[in-house]
């Protein structure tokens, strides 16, 4: 796995005392941060993982995903996963690990350790916000479209399979487009698609907090199908939410750059 440079990053929501710095390294969309101890006005805070805001304002995806949904989904649910994870890891051996490392360690071959849910959900939600953009939807282009045509037959066939996975994930969970490496024993977990060709695009779904990192797949796109993701806007109508996501929200730019990073 690629190493990432440690960086001090301050979210504009937290403290205005330090200038925002970019981080060097790969184009992977998830972030590893080792925050140094930093002084804020009132207390010394040793935070581990940041709650990063979505790369657009909370009302930017209206009317397809409401500001109200973001206020709860990002402002309460995602925030709680981050805060609770930090509480669980501070002062423990997990404190020195990246978010991705914490996920793999606490997945523990399916016998989940206590911080798995918070760690995975923190990662999943950041990945989800970045999977969407204002004016999203439409079709992918370039190499991504080529691979989709190659591995699914057509873009329409891919869309169908992705929507079906999202609609049939029973209870809480996620549906994913991933770039798959074919290693039957992926060490940490049972490979759910061992018979598929190597270096393929595949649609998978997962329950609760589980994500394809634990299968050593490279996630490219996700949709959150926990009810809290769509209930305020769509109530029980999950299929309508999924269609809206595909037609109006998906950031194919993000998916393409993730594919590039995964192949590198």
């Amino acid at each position: 796995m690629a190493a990432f440079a440690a960086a001090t990053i301050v979210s504009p929501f937290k403290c205005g005392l330090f200038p925002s710095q970019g981080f060097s390294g790969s184009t992977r969309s998830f972030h590893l941060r080792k925050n140094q101890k930093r002084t804020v006005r009132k207390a010394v805070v040793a935070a581990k993982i940041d709650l990063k805001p979505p790369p657009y304002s909370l009302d930017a995806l209206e009317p397809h995903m409401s500001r109200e949904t973001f206020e709860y989904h990002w402002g309460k649910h995602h925030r709680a996963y981050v805060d609770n994870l930090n509480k669980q890891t501070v002062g423990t051996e997990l404190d020195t690990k990246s978010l991705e490392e914490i996920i793999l360690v606490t997945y523990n071959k399916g016998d989940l350790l206590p911080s798995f849910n918070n760690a995975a959900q923190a990662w999943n939600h950041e990945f989800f916000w970045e999977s969407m953009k204002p004016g999203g939807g439409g079709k992918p282009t370039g190499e991504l479209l080529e691979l989709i045509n190659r591995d699914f037959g057509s873009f329409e066939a891919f869309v169908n399979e992705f929507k079906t996975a999202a609609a049939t994930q029973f209870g809480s969970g996620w549906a994913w487009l991933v770039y798959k490496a074919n290693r039957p024993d992926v060490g940490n977990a049972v490979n759910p698609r061992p018979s598929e060709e190597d270096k393929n695009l595949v649609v998978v779904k997962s329950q609760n907090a589980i994500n394809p990192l634990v299968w050593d797949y490279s996630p490219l796109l996700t949709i959150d199908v926990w009810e809290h993701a769509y209930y305020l806007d769509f109530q029980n109508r999950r299929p309508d939410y999924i269609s809206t996501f595909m037609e109006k929200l998906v950031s194919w730019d993000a998916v393409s750059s993730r594919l590039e990073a995964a192949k590198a």
Partner: protein
Amino acid sequence: MALRTLVSRKTLRTSSLGLRGLQTFSLPDLPYDYGALEPAISGEIMQLHHQKHHQTYVTNFNKAIEQLDGAASKGDASTIVKLQSAIKFNGGGHVNHSIFWKNLAPVREGGGEPPKGSLGWAIDNHFGSLDALVQKINAEGAALQGSGWVWLGVDKELKHLVVETTANQDPLVTKGPNLVPLLGIDVWEHAYYLQYKNVRPDYLKNIWKVINWKYAGEVYEKECP
């Protein structure tokens, strides 16, 4: 309005095993209006929960049973096995929600009144007090990851009370073949989100105001006479 579960006989079909009828399941009526549990549970939630979510479980359960029947009469073993998860999800959803509607009652019809009789005594005996039981159920309900249910049940062999959780729509019996549900609280987000949003603990705190202990007591007395 009496609670009744409508069951209709579908067309009879013959098979190599002889005459066979296929029962279909129907959405049971609620014994109270959608708004009758306010302010503990909003009328909007009750209507969606009953007319949309429970109805969908019933519809899909019937579909799965019909497919199961078809597969069984053809001797198609792998289809029979493949249908198990659809039957568990949707059948479990129908079973669990049918119990849930009976677990709730408007305040003016006894909702929220503490259990009396042998169940009240068993609760005090096993958990120390009703309040201790409520705290335990609320803690387990709040801690449940994802979707599921928290139950008060009775082991009909050992004759003692249990608090259990199940994931998704798994019925209580999946946690023990002798477990009989007395009380189930739905902690799927659809059960509370429009009103309580992410604050599941507030939903759990408030639902006790409309819990129908009378029904739970009747079930208990049947299992532990």
